[in-house]
């Protein structure tokens, strides 16, 4: 049996929001429906609510900036490395990072971005393996690699200025030479910038390849000064 249409328009309009979500109580729904049968203005109001819900639901998600995942991962890596206070704990965590880089699409769309981690403790451990973590990562046969030998020559001094952790974004050309360096986390003092520049610009990387062809790429290197 239908409930009597004994509600005012103001009450009916309050019920419309839960009603369109099927969240009104059964008796409330009955009262509202009964009211709508005789009230044209409220029917139009309900139509407006339904239209608005449809309009809101149809707006497309705003995609985050392409480098947000990378920036967030770098921030989290910083936080995690800081939390790993003990020398050996930290070393272990960093070695895990070295072996498990993150691959995300590059902004340019011509290569992937690889997050890798180097460890500074008298020598530099650098190794990157391709691991696509997102389905839309382009297929890359080989990511950019750095050889220990080339970078080791630059590690002789200056490392003590590093501080806690420094994350560097290096743009590597298809020739294997670095053409852009940005410090994206950690100490940004002139001394550290100089040290990073002196280390990376002369370095020779093995360029990333796509379908066997060298391509421009970007790598993120995190240097952590582990004191002995």
């Amino acid at each position, binding site marked *: 049996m239908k409930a009597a249409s004994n509600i005012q328009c103001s009450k009916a309009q309050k019920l419309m929001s839960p009603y369109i979500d099927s969240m009104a109580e059964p008796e409330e729904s009955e009262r509202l429906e009964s009211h709508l049968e005789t009230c044209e203005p409220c029917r139009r109001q309900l139509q407006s609510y339904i239209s*608005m819900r449809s309009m809101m639901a149809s707006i497309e998600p*705003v995609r985050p900036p392409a480098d947000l995942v990378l920036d967030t991962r770098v921030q989290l890596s910083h936080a995690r490395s800081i939390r790993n206070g003990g020398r050996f704990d930290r070393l272990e965590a960093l070695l895990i990072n070295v072996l498990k880089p993150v691959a995300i699409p590059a902004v340019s769309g011509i290569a992937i971005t690889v997050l890798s981690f180097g460890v500074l403790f008298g020598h530099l451990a650098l190794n990157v393996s391709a691991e696509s973590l997102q389905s839309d990562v382009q297929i890359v046969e080989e990511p950019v690699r750095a050889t220990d030998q080339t970078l080791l020559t630059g590690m002789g001094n200056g490392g003590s200025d590093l501080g806690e952790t420094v994350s560097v974004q290096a743009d590597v050309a298809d020739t294997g030479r670095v053409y852009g360096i940005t410090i994206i986390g950690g100490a940004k003092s002139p001394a550290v910038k100089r040290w990073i520049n002196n280390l990376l610009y002369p370095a020779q990387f093995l360029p990333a390849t796509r379908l066997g062809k060298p391509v421009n790429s970007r790598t993120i290197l995190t240097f952590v000064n582990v004191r002995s």
Partner: protein
Amino acid sequence: MRRELAYYDLERGVATLVDEQDAAFVRRLQANEDTAYDELVRTYNASIYHVAFRMLGDTAEASDAVQDIFLKVFRNIGSFRGDSALKTWIFRIGISEILNRLRWWNRRHRSSTVSMDDDHGGNGNGIHIRDSAPSPQQRLETKEQDAAIQQALGRLSGDHRSIVVLRDIEGFSYIEIADVLGISVGTVKSRLARARADMKKSLIRYLSIQRV
């Protein structure tokens, strides 16, 4: 197959689903597993960013908020007891961070404005049309409606804005919203009704031409 255990929080009138996969994932996060954090960021980055952008109306602010939210998740995951779904716990942290930012803005009388020409910060990541080949007219209408929605959201209080974004844009259920905001389902209903009434006033011009 995912298994969920449901219980009902009588005090708040909130049913909570505890997902076994969630629990295993949380244990990996608590163990500081590198791959778990990769997964966390990949899973929630886009949706948190979207909520942050819709609430803050600014791409740079939204990006900063996302990074701070993930850092807070990282710092607090140790105290996560599993008395709510991980998703709602993360969004609880997220909404709290976003509301703090809104309050900071309001204290400085900073108002967000949305230009019809604003492509969400000009980073090329703005409005995306569902239709693969929209006409210029459809594109313009979509852009105009998006801007109007953003402006209408900007006129709501932080509490009302968060509830509309979670429900009407992100599609959260009333129960999930109650869990995220720490309020009862009844409060969700009444608050959402008031917020929608305000939104409707702002958007009335568009509702008359909107197809149902």
